[in-house]
């Protein structure tokens, strides 16, 4: 492969080569950690800016453009502001838990990046049960949110924490279930194997990404919806809905701890986005065979950026859900649909053995119908399950 493709791997090897052989594994591990932290730390800073700029443009505003050219230094100003603010701990707060909560949220999230393949030969560790590892380290975030909300001794915090837990429990299920078809078809829990399974090309040089199959498309959409909810983003930002409960579980946090929560939430978003790229969008593979010469990490970054943009786009478009709508949507729509998606994946696997002319479009349409019809019916049932519009006797 081209040198540019492997440049980061090569730099890592060269840097580790300067040290004695006994500490080389340690050094390369530290280098990998430093690389991931530097890249995604910068990514965090840039995303906070990009989010505000894009949201502004979508609402016909400019967005931040005061600090530096085009507002590019805004993250720096935000950082200075956040870090120099007074760190207030409420008098009646549970001091230990109040202190621990941002750490419990932020530290495990970094671990999730360890298994993501960012490019060819560019994953920090190859775990046999990589997906399981990813979800296991992510599971601490719910506890952290609860700790933050409960220890603040503030009713808004507690309401926010309760909402967060209800939401996270509900959406963890479709999140994991939408991943399962990928694992079924790839036959592995290791992320590198899953990427490799999407690495071949079909007719016309088009890549065989999971998203080009009916179950993959449905899975990606389900995964993205659940990921939006898991990372507390609009339209599922009930736990910190500022127009309802001040800032939810963040109400009593300020300064550095607040910044840590922000960091943790954005990193969680990055991690699930990276996972979505890996599972459904072919990881670091090029979309067409004739684009193979572009470095693999570029493809990962491009897909990653596109998905982040999608998240911002959705945030700019949709209003916040009510809590009953949120839970109904998960349990009555997403969970059944992701279970049906398992069957669709099985059907896809089974029809893979079919041999007759023009099999590909027929197979595709058949499987698409298998998921589209339940989608339609479940959607109608969900609409029927919703309580009728509320009548405001005094407001009319």
């Amino acid at each position, binding site marked *: 492969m081209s040198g540019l493709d492997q440049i980061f791997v090569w730099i890592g090897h060269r840097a580790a080569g300067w040290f004695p052989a006994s500490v080389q594994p340690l050094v390369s591990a530290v280098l990998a950690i430093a690389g991931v932290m530097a890249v995604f730390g910068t990514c965090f800073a840039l995303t906070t800016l990009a989010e505000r700029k*894009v949201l502004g*443009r*979508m*609402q*016909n*505003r*400019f967005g931040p*453009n005061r600090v530096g050219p085009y507002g590019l230094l805004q993250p720096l100003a935000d950082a200075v502001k956040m870090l120099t603010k007074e760190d207030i701990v409420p008098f009646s707060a549970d001091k230990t838990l109040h202190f621990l909560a941002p750490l419990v949220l932020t530290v495990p999230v970094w671990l999730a990046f360890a298994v993501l393949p960012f490019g060819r030969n560019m994953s920090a560790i190859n775990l046999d049960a990589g997906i399981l590892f990813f979800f296991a380290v992510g599971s601490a975030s719910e506890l952290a949110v609860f700790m933050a909300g409960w220890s603040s001794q503030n009713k808004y915090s507690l309401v926010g924490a309760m909402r967060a837990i209800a939401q996270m429990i509900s959406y963890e299920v479709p999140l994991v279930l939408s991943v399962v078809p990928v694992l079924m078809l790839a036959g592995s829990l290791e992320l590198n194997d899953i990427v490799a399974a999407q690495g071949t090309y079909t007719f016309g040089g088009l890549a065989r990404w999971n998203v080009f199959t009916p179950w993959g498309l449905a899975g990606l959409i389900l995964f993205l919806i659940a990921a939006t909810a898991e990372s507390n983003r609009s339209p599922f930002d009930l736990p910190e809905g500022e127009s309802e409960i001040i800032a939810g579980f963040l109400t009593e946090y300020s300064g550095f701890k607040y910044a840590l929560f922000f960091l943790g939430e954005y990193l969680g978003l990055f991690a699930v986005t990276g996972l979505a790229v890996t599972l459904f969008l072919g990881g670091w593979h090029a979309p067409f065979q004739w684009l193979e010469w572009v470095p693999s990490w570029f493809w990962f970054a491009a897909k990653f950026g596109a998905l982040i943009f999608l998240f911002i*786009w*959705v945030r*700019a*478009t*949709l209003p916040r859900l009510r809590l009953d709508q949120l839970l109904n949507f998960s349990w009555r729509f997403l969970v059944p649909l992701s279970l049906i998606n398992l069957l669709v994946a099985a059907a896809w696997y089974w029809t893979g053995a079919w041999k007759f002319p023009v099999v590909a479009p027929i197979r595709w349409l058949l499987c698409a119908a298998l998921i589209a019809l339940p*989608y*339609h019916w479940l*959607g*109608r049932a*969900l*609409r029927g399950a919703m309580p009728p519009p509320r009548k405001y006797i005094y407001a009319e």
Partner: protein
Amino acid sequence: MNGFGIIKGMIETARNFVGSYHDAQRLTTVQYPEQKLPPVENARTIPFLVFDGDDAMAGLRCTACVICEKECPPQCIYIVKDQVKKPDYVGKMQMQPKVFDIDISVCMSCGICVEVCPFDAIKMDQVFELSTGDRFGKLLLDKHQLAKPNDYFVKIHKTEASEIDVRREEDKRKAEAAAAAKAAAPKSPATPGAAK
């Protein structure tokens, strides 16, 4: 079909996003320190003192009648009368303020002082960039800071100022005519009100 509403909404936001880059009509935000909207004639912020002529203190219309001080609801005006009198625009001797302070941190911009002033001496200004680093010293404006020429008043409140100017011209003309009439008839006994 379910879900199309979301897609429609997303197309709308995407149109905004793209449109805001090439369609200046969409971006209605005024980039404030560099760009400013033209001031609206009816805008009113804090009071100022109008003077005629070039010398601010000599041309001050205020006669230290303290009506505004008494009427001011938050009592942000503080006036001390001067012992020395000065002639006003019709040549009549009038009192003048020695001290005229307005605490603009207290002023609530109600404009009552303007309405009660019989001499058109206090009017509402349009300045709005009033922030300072010293809230005790710099927000207490004295008469030198408050005094602004009539030209400025004409500039900011054109309709109102020109009406007043016409009226004052009329008064002035009448006063001059009266003085001329008085000068033309010196034989008549001196009227008591004319002296001093």
